[in-house]
């Protein structure tokens, strides 16, 4: 019984991280209808930026984290404005190819600069501290912080989309980017802002991820697939759905890992494909 509870608890904690990965992806899907195949590589890129800030520039972690959020917003805004806006159209091919190309460039630039070795960001001993709530069930502080961050950010995003003028602009641009221009909204600027915010979400995910485990330059595609699966399992257009999707994926992987370490990721993929066949609209579709 405790094993089962442990699988679910650890799955939820792992899923919180996936939910965090996926929220940026969900935002980009929702506003731009853009399939960003470099999403995972952007996460890895920001991990290495954080590593450079703490490891090479020797900044204190707190300062580095704040700087990272600023850098991330600027980078996201710039990437969307300078590159992705040029290829956004109804035809998915150009944006897919460009983001796929970006993914290859980022992976190899990181390998060239940082070598292929996996690295993690040191947090003192915070990442290894935990509390034991019951025999056999131990909760790490870092995963708990991750879960809290995911919940807070899901609330924040839901609020941003539902209650603010910017959120209204996001939703309107998503519905019809030609018409919003008549209302004085530049879709290019809106897209760039959305990507900037997505990058801030990615930065938070990257920071927590790099404290949890060692990251290597070629990890991006795997993270992209987890984020994508969480979005689809959860159902498009709702941040709580994405949150739930991350949980489902985390629990599935954790259960797989329990039976055999080789089948953990595999089981996560299978659950995703099963949801696709049985409930293609996802767990929490917005229009349901």
């Amino acid at each position, binding site marked *: 019984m405790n094993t089962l509870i442990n699988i679910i608890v650890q799955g939820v904690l792992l899923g919180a991280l996936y939910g965090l990965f996926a929220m940026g992806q969900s935002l980009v899907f929702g506003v731009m209808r853009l*399939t960003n195949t470099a999403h995972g590589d952007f996460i890895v890129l920001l991990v290495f930026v954080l590593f450079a800030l703490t490891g090479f520039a020797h900044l204190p972690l707190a300062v580095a984290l704040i700087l990272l959020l600023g850098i991330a917003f600027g980078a996201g805004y710039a990437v969307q404005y300078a590159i992705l806006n040029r290829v956004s159209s109804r035809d998915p*091919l*150009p944006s*897919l190819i460009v983001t796929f*190309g970006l993914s*290859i460039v980022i992976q*190899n630039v990181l390998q060239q600069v940082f070598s292929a070795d996996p690295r993690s960001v040191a947090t003192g001993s915070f990442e290894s501290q935990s509390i034991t709530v019951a025999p056999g069930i131990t909760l790490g502080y870092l995963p708990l912080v991750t879960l809290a961050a995911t919940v807070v950010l899901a609330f924040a995003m839901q609020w941003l989309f539902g209650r603010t003028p910017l959120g209204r602009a996001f939703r309107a641009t998503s519905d019809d980017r030609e018409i919003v221009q008549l209302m004085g909204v530049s879709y290019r600027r809106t897209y760039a802002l959305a990507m900037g915010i997505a990058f801030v979400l990615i930065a938070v995910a990257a920071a927590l991820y790099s404290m949890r485990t060692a990251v290597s330059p070629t990890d991006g595609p795997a993270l992209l697939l987890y984020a*994508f699966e969480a979005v689809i399992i959860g159902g498009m257009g709702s941040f709580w759905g994405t949150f739930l999707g991350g949980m489902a994926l985390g629990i599935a992987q954790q259960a797989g890992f329990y039976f055999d370490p080789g089948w953990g990721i595999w089981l996560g993929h299978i659950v995703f494909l099963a949801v696709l*066949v049985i409930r*293609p609209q996802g767990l929490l579709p917005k229009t349901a």
Partner: protein
Amino acid sequence: MNTLLNRPAASASFEVRRATRASRVAVLVLLVIALAVASAPWWAGRDALHDFVQLASYLVFAMMWNLLAGYGGMVSIGQQAFFGIGGYGMLILANYCGVSPFVAVPLAAVIATVVAVPVSLVAFRLEGGYFAIGTWVIAEVFRLTIANVSVLGGGSGTSLTALQDVPRALRESLTLWLALAIVAAAVGLLYVFLRSKAGLSLTAMRDNAVAASSQGVDVKRARLFVYLVSACGTALAGGLYFLGNLRISPDAAFSANWTAFGIFIVLIGGLGTLEGPILGALIFFVLNKFLSDYGTWYLIGLGALAILVTMFFPQGLWGFVSRRFGLQLFPVGRRVVFLDDETSARPATDDVTKALNTSSAAHRA
């Protein structure tokens, strides 16, 4: 212009031509090249034979990706699934079932086609960009499954032992001829297919799926057909590649790099043309041969080039050449040619020809 358009009504003597002078020359040149390659074991070195087999794998993979994305409108990042199934299918049939590896390559392609049927049921739940990433997940499922099967060497892979008793020279010649046969079949069958009624409906579907559907094209069936053909061809490329390589591992067989290379070849050459992947594969092969030693820089260059081509040069090299010079080596369109009054009609005919050809020469808008 008015009198010009009235002409066919006035005199009925015109005919529809499909071949061009360039296309007749191209067929001749291709035949000469095929003969040269077929006789290569008697005049070329071992490295050249191996190079051709690799080039053939890249080319067929890229042509199948082009069929799927450029004609079928389905952008996949998961074609390595069928490449790997082709490779592993060939190896299993040869190592464990006693089938000759050269027969196992087409057999594995049949297996991949059968596997593609249930896979399509899952993949077709998604569209556009979601389809692209969804197919990637499916390819990962195959990779992880094979990596967990210890009989096949697990994650570190295994070797093709069935060819141990075949003399090396014979093995290399047979592999080369198989590669030539696969390339010839792929080019020939795609050409015939695209000229047929089904090919015409496919081209219509590529340009506008909704409009094509309203004209009676069964879009769903056409998509499935293209997906299956593409899976079959990709598996042929995979079987061939690992037959030439003699060693296979899950990471090599199911690597997303295959699709990355395929996309690069098709984009450089020209999406949605038959000539494009051939030109692109040659360019890629030369780049790969001379620059792959630069490792990460080489890959950074390929990625950056793909981005630049998509943003500023979306028709690719062949698209540029065929527009600029009106060349078509594999004409899939139709031209109307007037037979009477040859001398005076000639310039007019050219105009009409041009007008009629734009539809077939135009690539993705």
